[in-house]
């Protein structure tokens, strides 16, 4: 997918919060979540374009991860409606959301430490009849599928350069390798859309480039990617579209270059309320990226 094609998809899209997209895979409306008196998420309208990389950015406490949790069934909103591929997902438990084709990863990596890398991968696969208690007792009923799964897992491990770690416990991997494993495991599920919560957090810089390459490769395979990230360089480098949140609301949307010059975004990062110094630092970083 060339940069021109990306531009043309988004060329008619307005640069406003809640903008309509030509072919949205995920549409959310009026999603609201408050913890006590504090409104964490209050999203009026959000559309995520199919087959593109959309970044979700915003200062700390903007509600990005909370929105992720809500959309993937890990948290329940006070009110709100959202649909994936035209099918409503509101109120579905996390397992069913993943089955519908929307798989997520976590900010704090959840590698299953006391299981080997290959077992982690196999667990990601859907439609394994042996996951039924009764079928599990009769190996001939699930061995053929297990062989398929293993083959798929091994090819993914090769792609993510984890094949040498195949039989090691996942707990013995480095932070970056765990991120890769978690992403590869999510791919075992065959998702249409993958949601990455801070894929770069804790990753050694040497791995960053390859991780970015992997994420772009996912899009080129036709997958939709939505990710939360603090690293502005990464956002600018790989995202096709950027959605900015602040204080639970979406405050800006647009292509990465435009968004980072948007006054509303810079204001959001600079903030006017609490912890101005941390926000100022992030805003400084933002301006820094824009200048390049």
């Amino acid at each position: 997918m060339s940069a021109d094609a990306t531009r043309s998809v988004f060329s008619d899209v307005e640069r406003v919060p809640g903008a309509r997209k030509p072919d949205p895979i995920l549409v959310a409306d009026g999603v609201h979540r408050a913890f006590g008196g504090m409104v964490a998420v209050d999203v009026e309208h959000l559309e995520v374009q199919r087959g593109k990389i959309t970044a979700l950015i915003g200062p700390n406490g903007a509600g990005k991860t909370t929105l992720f949790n809500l959309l993937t069934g890990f948290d329940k909103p006070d009110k709100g409606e959202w649909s994936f591929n035209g099918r409503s997902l509101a109120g579905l438990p996390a397992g069913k959301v993943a089955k519908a084709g929307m798989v997520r990863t976590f900010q704090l990596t959840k590698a299953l430490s006391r299981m080997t890398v290959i077992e982690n991968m196999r667990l990601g696969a859907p439609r394994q009849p042996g996951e039924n208690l009764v079928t599990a007792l009769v190996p001939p009923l699930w061995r053929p599928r297990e062989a398929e799964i293993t083959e798929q897992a091994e090819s993914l491990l090769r792609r993510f350069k984890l094949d040498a770690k195949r039989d090691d416990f996942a707990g013995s991997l480095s932070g970056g390798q765990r991120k890769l494993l978690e992403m590869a495991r999510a791919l075992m599920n065959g998702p249409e859309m993958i949601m990455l919560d801070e894929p770069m957090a804790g990753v050694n810089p040497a791995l960053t480039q390859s991780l970015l390459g992997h994420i772009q490769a996912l899009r080129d395979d036709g997958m939709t990617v939505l990710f939360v990230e603090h690293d502005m360089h990464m956002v600018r480098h790989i995202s096709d579209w950027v959605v900015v949140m602040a204080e639970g609301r979406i405050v800006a949307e647009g292509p990465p270059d435009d968004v980072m010059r948007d006054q509303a975004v810079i204001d959001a990062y600079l903030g006017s309320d609490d912890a101005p110094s941390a926000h100022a630092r992030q805003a400084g970083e933002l301006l820094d990226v824009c200048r390049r």
Partner: protein
Amino acid sequence: MDWTSILANVAGELFHPVTAAYVIAAIGLNVHFGLTGLLNMGQAGFMLIGAYGFAITTLAGNSALTGFLVGMAAAVLFALLLGMPTLWLRGDYLAIVTIAAAEIVRLIGRSTSMTWLTGGNAGIAGDGFKNAFHATCLLPEGSTTILFWTYPNCYSNSWWLRIVAWVLVALLCLLVWRLMRSPWGRVLKGIREDEDAVRSLGKSVYSYKMQSLILGGCMGALGGIVFVLPQAVQADSMGRPTTFFVWTLLLLGGAATVFGPVLGSMLLWSSLMLIKSVMRDVIPATVLRTEQIESFSFVVVGVTLMMLIIFRPQGILGDKKELSINVR
């Protein structure tokens, strides 16, 4: 000192039906804790439920098979009742609820108002409910001596019960071995490690936890049935200490292993017998009376176990590598 009789006593514990009963209950707990990470602190409750189900049913004149099925059905209901409100929540809640529920079962069982059904404090005497199991005996009547051990063939604490109990142990070990190495077992292990990760991969964690709770609970109930067959049903014999014995011997043998419960139970009960027998022989009655020796032997076993947990926390059969990752 009469070493022959001491060693005969100790070795007798190795294949005692009560040892087997603990193995079976611990295999169930292993499904809960070792495989799924569920903190069931009330395995004795499941045992008691199974024992009551079996004894009350057979006392009413039904066959041992019917009694067994009623015991299992009661355990399934008990597991559903405990699991439905707690399996949505963090693990600690199941621990609190199970320990309380096991106590509720015991206190209701022993209460005076339930005497018509459970025999209250006195329990259900052996001769009543054992006939149904006695009737299944394939051995000729009488008693048999093999080496140092003489037991009746069919009645109560019998050879027949030993055969049935250890065949059950073998079958359950086979079942757990098969399940641990199946995709089903893999999902459970994933839940043990991090249930949110498993949820994010499209599995219904709640349903798997419930299946595990029911399966392990049924094994607990079966352990309870084997536990009462050589003796009587008495609520207080399956109280909190029983739950902790089951935990102790599971951790001793090694959680998440197939033979950990077997080894743990044999080792715990035979070493307890060894310590008791030797102390009775060696320590004069003026220093420690017999009942004091009984208590003191538990102290010795307790200290030994503390040593084990300090120096070999993964249990005897456990994998050090697996555990060291978790500790980090």
